[in-house]
């Protein structure tokens, strides 16, 4: 398995992580049901407004799922940033991962590696983390 994602989406996620720093940023990329294609990016508000935690607001979450259903889409990617640690799922990320079909993307904008960033993708299923390749298309 690997994640295929456009350069434009990578740039949007990186930019969002920088503009919301030091808080974690978050969002999703949607695609037509069954396609597995990351085609529509939707930035979400981190209701926790925290550098160590993110959570979609419960009302936004319901609207998101309604929208996804109405448009015959699915959540292909769930992304968030780590602002002080590497782009690897934390224990809480693993504990709360509730979408077995999604690619969990982590971007790290921590200072030590600036201006570089880390952009990595994982499957998180039943508590098991599997890193996957990221192919960035132009």
């Amino acid at each position, binding site marked *: 398995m690997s994640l295929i994602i456009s350069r434009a989406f990578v740039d949007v996620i990186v930019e969002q992580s920088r503009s919301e720093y030091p808080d974690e940023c978050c969002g999703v990329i949607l695609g037509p049901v069954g396609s597995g294609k990351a085609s529509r990016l939707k930035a979400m508000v981190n209701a926790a407004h925290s550098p160590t935690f993110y959570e979609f607001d419960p009302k936004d979450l*319901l609207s998101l799922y309604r929208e996804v259903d109405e448009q015959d889409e699915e959540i292909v990617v769930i992304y968030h940033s780590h602002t002080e640690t590497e782009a690897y799922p934390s224990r809480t990320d693993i504990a709360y991962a*509730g979408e077995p079909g999604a690619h969990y993307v982590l971007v790290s904008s921590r200072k030590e590696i600036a201006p570089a960033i880390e952009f990595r993708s994982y499957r998180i299923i039943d508590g098991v983390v599997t890193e996957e390749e990221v192919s960035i298309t132009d």
Partner: protein
Amino acid sequence: MSIEVRIPTILRPFTKDQKAVAASGASLTALITNLDSQFPGIGDRLLENGALRRFINIYINDEDVRFLGGLDAHIKDGDSVTILPAVAGG
């Protein structure tokens, strides 16, 4: 009395992959008890020590049950209940 309950992907192994199921109950507690009797084990994924799990969101129609009295929230015929895992992490 029949309430439509929308089931998230992660809980569909309990419902034989059904996206929506019918259940009954005049309160959220009663509804969860009814769901668990139809789909054994699902109750445990919604409750912890008798309270709603922190990272499970349940909505009656458009409202988060946390604003409707939690497990005591009233449910009436024709309501629709949606269960969604929080999207959250650290």
